[in-house]
Each structure stands twice: as structure tokens, then as C-alpha cells.
């Protein structure tokens, strides 16, 4: 008797859970289509931004370990406040961040996402708001002088980033080591376990700034990959609203101010919009 009762309880619990789950998707679906409406976001009055926090100086935690700060973070905080929306920061792993956009976990991605042709195919990519390219970082005493020297050496990248794509798509002949967090790439370089790190210039500059005696940049990809906001395909309503705010922020100097705070100067955002 006891067994049957507990089994029934388990079934009820499962049913209740699925009921909650489906209720949630039902409310989310119509909101996404309400582009003609005043609300352009998934939940009216709220802007949910998908971001992988752990990518200084673009998005990272302050020393208290819980306050999100960084260039992107201040940018979307400003966007939300100008649009009169409540901001919801959805901290998510980079590997899977696009799947989260597809399944309506957030309205957009603003997480140092480089504009690449492949991403333009699958998502609605905004206009660039900050300049970026991938760079090769090595210890100062390294004999690697460019990307052609990495043959037979090991290079650390963050998994599924444009740096990772670069190594997979180009025949560099190096051993690719991919990590979940970009900080682990630098840990490995510091411990001498890898020969180089390939990463976004915005991040490279940050690490160079704090450890200039130990690293140097030996190669910059000539193909610039500026960073833009990523929207779900077909979400023109949100695209128009956000891009307009970004233009305004650029015009009145807010973007340059935030850039100077995090990068030291505004050269990364000059003349982009």
C-alpha cells in the first residue's frame, strides 16, 4: 500500500511539473509574436539579456563576486533604462548561449559576440558597437612570432568562440585546447602548459594591461570581427528598437564614455556608428 501511495505521489509531482513547464511556454509564445504591440520583449516591461559573465573587461563580476560589471553590462543597463524597461541579466555558459536565444530564454545576446558570416546566417546580427579582432598572445620570451609558427604547438581558446572557429577552419597544424572559460586559457599559459592563447583583442588588451611584463601580442587577424548585438532571426521589432538606442548612445558620447572607462580610451568604438 505504501509503495503504491508513493508511486502515485511521484506521478502527481511529475504531472504538476510538466503542467508548470507548459504553462510557462504558453505565456512566452504569444509575447514573442507581439511585435506590433507596444512590447517588443518576451515579457512586457522587461529586457532579458543573455550574457556569459567571465570575460573581462566586457562582462565580469566585480570583486564581490556577484555584481556584474563591464563594457557590455553598462551598455545594456543604459539601453534598458533608456527604453524604460526592467533589466534581467541571464548569466549563461557560452557553449549553449545561442541555443538559449533560440528557445526564448532571453530577448537578445550582448556578450562580446563577434559578427561572423555564419552567425549572420543563423541569427539577426546588429550593427557593430565595438571594434574587435582575434589576437595571438604568447609569453614574452616565446619564439612564436606569428600565427604561422604555431604548427606543432598547443594553442588555448575558449570553446565555440570565433577564435576556436579560426583554428578549426584554418590549417594551422596546432594542437587546439578549448576551455569553457577564457580565464582558464590564461591559467594554462601562465603555468606554461600551452604555448599561446588565441582570443578577442578586447580581452587580450585587458590581460596585457594587468600582466604586460609576461605576455605579448604577436599576431592580429587582419579580418576584423566587430562585436554586435545578436537577436533571434525575424525579430525586427526588437532589432529596430535596440539599434536606435545604440545609435543615440553613440551620438551623444555615452558609448565613448563607457569605452574609456573600461578600455582606457574610446578608439575601439570611434566611427563605428
Amino acid at each position, binding site marked *: 500500500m505504501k509503495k503504491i501511495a508513493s508511486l502515485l505521489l511521484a506521478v502527481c509531482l511529475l504531472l504538476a511539473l510538466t503542467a508548470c513547464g507548459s504553462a510557462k511556454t504558453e505565456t512566452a509564445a504569444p509575447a514573442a509574436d507581439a511585435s506590433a504591440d507596444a512590447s517588443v520583449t518576451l515579457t512586457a516591461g522587461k529586457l532579458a539579456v543573455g550574457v556569459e559573465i567571465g570575460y573581462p573587461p566586457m562582462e565580469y563580476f566585480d570583486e564581490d563576486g556577484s555584481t556584474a560589471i563591464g563594457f557590455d553590462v553598462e551598455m545594456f543597463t543604459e539601453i534598458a533604462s533608456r527604453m524604460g524597461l526592467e533589466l534581467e541579466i541571464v548569466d549563461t555558459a557560452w*557553449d549553449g548561449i545561442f541555443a538559449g536565444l533560440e528557445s526564448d530564454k532571453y530577448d537578445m545576446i550582448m556578450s562580446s559576440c563577434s559578427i561572423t558570416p555564419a552567425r549572420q546566417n*543563423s541569427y539577426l546580427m546588429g550593427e557593430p558597437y565595438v571594434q574587435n579582432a582575434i589576437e595571438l598572445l604568447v609569453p614574452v620570451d616565446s619564439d612564436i612570432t606569428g600565427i604561422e609558427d604555431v604548427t606543432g604547438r598547443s594553442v588555448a581558446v575558449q570553446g*565555440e568562440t570565433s577564435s576556436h572557429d579560426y583554428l578549426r577552419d584554418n590549417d594551422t597544424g596546432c594542437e587546439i585546447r*578549448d576551455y*569553457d572559460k577564457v580565464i*582558464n586559457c590564461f591559467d594554462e599559459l601562465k603555468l*606554461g*602548459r600551452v604555448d599561446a592563447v588565441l582570443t578577442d583583442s578586447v580581452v587580450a588588451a585587458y590581460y596585457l594591461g594587468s600582466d604586460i611584463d609576461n605576455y605579448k601580442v604577436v599576431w592580429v587577424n587582419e579580418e576584423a570581427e566587430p562585436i554586435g548585438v545578436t537577436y533571434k532571426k525575424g525579430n525586427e521589432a526588437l532589432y529596430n528598437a535596440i539599434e536606435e538606442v545604440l545609435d543615440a548612445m553613440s551620438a551623444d558620447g555615452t558609448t565613448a564614455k563607457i569605452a574609456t572607462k573600461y578600455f582606457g580610451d574610446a578608439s575601439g568604438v570611434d566611427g563605428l556608428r
Partner: protein
Amino acid sequence: MEVLQKMISWLPQLLNGAKITILLTLTATCAGLILSIFLALGKMSRNKIISKVCSAYIFFFRGTPLLMQLYFLYFAVPLFLPALTINNRFLAAFIAYSLNSAAYCAELVRAAIQSIDKGQFEAATALGMTYGQAMRLLIIPQSIRRLVPPIGNEFIMMLKDASLVSIISLGDLTKVTRSINSSAATALVYIPSMIIYLIITAFFTFVFNRIEEKMAKKE
């Protein structure tokens, strides 16, 4: 049909990942099991210091996540104990998994030993056997048989915990699956991958069942 062809084209990569998964699980569980016998005996020891040290070890490794232990050993230890730096990623994973598995197995071993009737031990010592002789000749051989099913269980848990090694960029089956998922832009790769996991589990379940049968015959 096209889907099937795609899945077959992923197989070599997936099997490469499976190799690491199997190798890590096998070596780490074996090493962990050997270490665990000493831990279990140590915890049951009448020597208070040995007993406390072994208890503390077991408490530490069962009380913290394996993921964190792996991070700690690979990234944190080199910072304050440079002499213990392990640069080989497989070796680092092997050590972390062995140490962790040893703690879990130690409790299984202890339970198996304590499940043998105490009267047997008393009879053995009454016959003039030393503690070591009684353990080696009488208690441990009997407890091994009772140990097989829970160790089989621990092995299968370990097989799936092996997926955590992706954090140190070691390409086990789960990591390979995830990277195919993103590069081929299809989640279908989870189908052959899960089938491979099931095949591995089925094989080792079979092996452990055979060992159990063999042991039963000896009784």
C-alpha cells in the same frame, strides 16, 4: 538515410572520445579500489590517529564535488605547491578520479568487511591467527564477493562522471559529442553518443555479473 550516413561519419571521433572515457574509468576505479582497501582498514584501525586521518580523507573527498576537486588539482595546486604541478591532463584526471573513487570505495569495503560475522574473526584469533592473517586469509576473501555489486555500481557512476574532464580540455565522449553538436549544428549527435554510453555500460554490467557468478560458485 542521410541522417544515418551523418551519424556513421561521426563514429570515428565519438569512438576516440569513448576510448578516453573507458580508459579513465577503468584505471581510476582500479587504482581507487586498491587505495580504498587501505583506507577502509585504516578507518577501522584501533590506532586513533590512523583512524582519524582516514576518516578525514573520506570526509573530504565525499564532501566536495568531483568537479571542484579536478579544478583544484589542475589549476589551483600549481599556484601554491608548484612541486605537485601535473601538466599531463590525463594524468591529472586519473589522479583526481582515483582519489575521489577511493573515498567512495572505502566505505563500500568497510561495509563489506563489517558484514562478515564477527565470530569468524574471534574464532580465527582464538586459533592463533594474527590480525593480518585473519584479514588476509579469512575476512577479505569473503568480503570481496559481497563487494562486487556495489563496486560495479561505483564503476558505472564513474563512467558518467568522466564527462567532467571537458573542463581541462580532455576530449572524452561527452566533450566530443558537444563539439560535434556545435560544429555540425545538429543535436542529433546525442543519439549515437548515448547508444555508445549504453553499450559500454551494458558490457561492463555483463562483466561484473560474470564475476559475481564466478564468486558465487566458489562459495
